[in-house]
């Protein structure tokens, strides 16, 4: 991987003829930072950047860290990054916080807990607002992960917004999902509900110095014993931590590394990647089809169709098929 030397902080001005991707590959942190902004904002520049850097992706282990607000996710991520550095592993961190549904603004506060990562040039921390996307991460999170991957970080940690029960999108983007629980949030029925607890590859019970910690651990254990064979033949480990005192961190990193080896040796890694790539490709196709229709069918015509649907003169399925057929210049879709 390209080394991220401290001198990379002395960012160069964008030179003509040398694109941001090349500068990023050469270790320029400012170029990396700008590319993240470009990709986060989407549009044509983003597409061109991703087209250029995609060839360098697919090398990092992507680790999702999720759990309820206040569970200690940022503190844990900070400690995980420090432990990875002790193992000579470079780390990119993407911390997502929610966008206000009213103003569109956001307070991104995850860095507060990540101060100890400071000036280490082999760590890069970026905050990201969810920008209206539900599911715990932003729409562009997967693409920003690609930028960090192409920049050569060995591990990319994505911290989700404080998650409730259904913010499970991270499991589609990450190779290894760490679900952080804390004592005292609910009874054993909470633990067998569907959703966030199902996506864990590693459970962390943080704040394990609290009195109910053993009970939380037992609930999680009991939940897993109720099910049949573990998904992907991986028995999900439960690790007890006190992130503020850096206790249990090595065990979490060990579990993350074991999970990666497990995925690789069993072939699940390749299969997960195939599913992710296919899903992504499909969603890009959908987007392009929509762009194509909007480009070839004028706004008045589209408004007229919407009005006919609203008046129940045509159903939305038939109308969509006809419009797409028109845009493609074919008589019928099927």
């Amino acid at each position, binding site marked *: 991987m390209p080394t991220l030397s401290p001198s990379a*902080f002395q960012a160069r001005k964008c030179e003509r003829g040398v694109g941001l991707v090349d500068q990023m590959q050469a270790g320029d942190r400012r170029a990396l930072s700008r590319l993240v902004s470009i990709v986060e904002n989407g549009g044509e520049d983003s597409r061109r950047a991703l087209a250029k850097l995609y060839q360098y992706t697919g090398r990092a282990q992507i680790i999702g860290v999720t759990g309820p607000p206040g569970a200690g996710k940022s503190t844990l991520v900070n400690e995980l990054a420090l432990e990875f550095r002790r193992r000579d592993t470079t780390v990119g961190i993407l911390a997502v916080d929610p966008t206000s549904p009213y103003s569109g603004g*956001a307070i991104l506060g995850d860095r507060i807990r990540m101060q100890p990562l400071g000036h280490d040039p082999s760590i890069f921390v970026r905050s990201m607002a969810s*920008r209206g996307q539900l599911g715990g991460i932003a729409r562009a999170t997967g693409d920003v992960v690609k930028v960090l991957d192409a920049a050569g970080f060995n591990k990319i940690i994505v911290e989700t917004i404080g998650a409730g029960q259904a913010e499970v999108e991270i499991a589609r983007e990450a190779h290894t999902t760490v679900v952080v629980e804390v004592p005292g949030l609910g009874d054993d029925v909470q633990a067998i509900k569907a959703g966030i607890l199902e996506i864990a590859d590693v459970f962390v019970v943080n704040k394990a110095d609290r009195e109910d910690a053993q009970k939380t651990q037992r609930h999680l254990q009991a939940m897993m014993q109720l099910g049949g064979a573990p998904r992907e033949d991986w028995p999900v480990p439960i690790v007890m931590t006190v992130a503020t005192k850096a206790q249990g961190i090595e065990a979490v990193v060990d579990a993350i590394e074991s999970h990666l080896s497990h995925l690789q040796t069993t072939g699940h890694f390749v299969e997960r990647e195939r599913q992710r790539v296919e899903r992504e490709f499909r969603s890009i196709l959908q987007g392009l089809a929509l762009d194509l229709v909007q480009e070839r069918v004028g706004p008045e015509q589209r408004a007229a169709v919407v009005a006919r649907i609203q008046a129940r003169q045509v159903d939305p399925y038939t109308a969509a098929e006809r419009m797409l057929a028109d845009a493609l210049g074919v008589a019928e879709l099927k």
Partner: protein
Amino acid sequence: MERKIRVLVAKPGLDGHDRGAKVIARALRDAGMEVVYTGLQQTPQMIVDAALQEDVDVIGLSILSGAHMTLLPKVMQLLNAAGAADVLVVAGGIISDADAEILRREHGIAAVYGPGASTNAIVEFIRANVKPERFSGAEV
């Protein structure tokens, strides 16, 4: 897509009073900006590192300790050395008019706000002076 204005709100130095910084962060959020809040006791180097990684358009520095004539020029110096002079820097706190004048004229702090400044005025200043298109046309 509309580009969001990104702001880093930081407290350089050793004073522990961050109510002002939080009020500003909240006001900027309510104005639709994305505010990276880094918390207390930041060194100039930490502030500049964070600003570069977060690729912010604006840095807001809140300082009440009296060390502004040491810390704020240091932030500007590091920012310039990193080739990030295009970032708009504003400051707030207990800063005398004479010091504010020097910070603006000699060190490139765009605006200095004292106690009682209206958050609206700060929002309007940022909107009017930020260069949201500073990355457009960059060669990828």
